[in-house]
């Protein structure tokens, strides 16, 4: 575990210097940790796990946008844990006490081929629909169609630099929408 944490911290530092591959590895490695922390936190508060996916996605988004705050002299894992706990508490506050209707009996009543709007779609995916203009096009190309920034730039007729800036702003816009959605 200790070696792993050191590896993560190294990846985080490399990411801060613009090393995209290290950053990807780091995020992939953090997903199980984020999920475990969020799950424990939800369970401890007597919540069902229907909001788990959203909490994990929001936590990833927050780690991404707040990574400049992490100070290499502080251990990374407690920092990530604390951030996820904060995000989980936020999510619980936002949703309040919600009655969750089990979906299976209802699903049987629906004709099999009817598309089920928003079911299984996360908050973040829904929020992409609220982002405007080029930001939305870039997000859709990368997040939903699986393109890289360069491919998205080509297909949208933008320069790669412009596409990068647009992507960054779009991600910030999503975070802002998440923030507003809870007030």
């Amino acid at each position, binding site marked *: 575990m200790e070696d792993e944490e050191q590896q993560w911290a190294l990846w985080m530092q490399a990411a801060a210097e613009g090393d995209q591959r290290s950053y990807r590895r780091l995020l992939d490695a953090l997903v199980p940790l984020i999920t475990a922390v969020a799950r424990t936190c939800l369970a401890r508060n007597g919540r069902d796990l229907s909001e788990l996916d959203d909490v994990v996605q929001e936590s990833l988004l927050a780690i991404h946008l707040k990574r*400049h705050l992490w100070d290499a002299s502080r251990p990374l894992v407690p*920092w990530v844990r604390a951030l996820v706990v*904060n995000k989980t508490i936020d999510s619980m506050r936002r949703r309040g006490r919600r009655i969750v209707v089990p979906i299976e009996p209802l699903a049987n009543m629906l004709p099999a081929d009817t598309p089920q709007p928003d079911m299984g779609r996360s908050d973040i995916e829904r929020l992409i629909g609220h982002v405007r203009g080029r930001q939305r096009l870039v997000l859709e190309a990368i*997040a939903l169609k*699986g393109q890289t920034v360069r491919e998205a730039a080509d297909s949208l007729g933008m320069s790669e630099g412009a596409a990068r800036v647009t992507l960054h702003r779009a*991600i910030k816009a999503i975070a802002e929408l998440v923030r507003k959605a809870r007030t």
Partner: protein
Amino acid sequence: MKLDDLVRTLAEDTQQPRLPLGRQLTVGLATGAALSCAILLVTAGVRPDLPEALLSWQVLAKFAFAGLLMAAAFAASLDAAQPDARGGSRALAAAPGLLAAAVGAELLTTPAGTWGAAASGRHPELCLVVVPALSALPLIAAVATLRRAAPASPTRLGLAMGLLCGALGAFVYMLRCTDDAPLFVAIWYSAAIALVGLAGALAGRRAFRW
């Protein structure tokens, strides 16, 4: 959207993270403080006896109080800006401790009949108005910078930031103010700084949610 798509998208966003928060906060506060100093110089100027005044222990204690509070509140702000804030900043007790010692020394060395006059000073009302006014620009700069933070408690970060800016405004006003009695500082400067702290907490509660 699958988690993997989100991870891939975030990894595609290679915009470099900006300057460390501490350095950015320093730049913002220094700019705000420089403007506040300029405003003070243009409108009222510094106290005419500033060089000699710096030889008196009361004046030194006054500046040391504001300086210590600034340093401790700066550290407390950077800590509170993190999701894993450690909290419990004991360093914040140093400034009030120093002030209490100065008040003690004053009470021991001056006759009880002069305490009332020392406590009310010449211009208590100016202290209550001018300190917050001189704190305003640093406060605006600090709010703008600290919006990038990820505080465990936005209110707590706002409070630390408010105390920091209040102490900074107090430090600037001390270049002008001739009420030097530790009793005066303990009452009026503390109240003025507390006001800015409160404003910071209220602002932080709204502005620092992330």
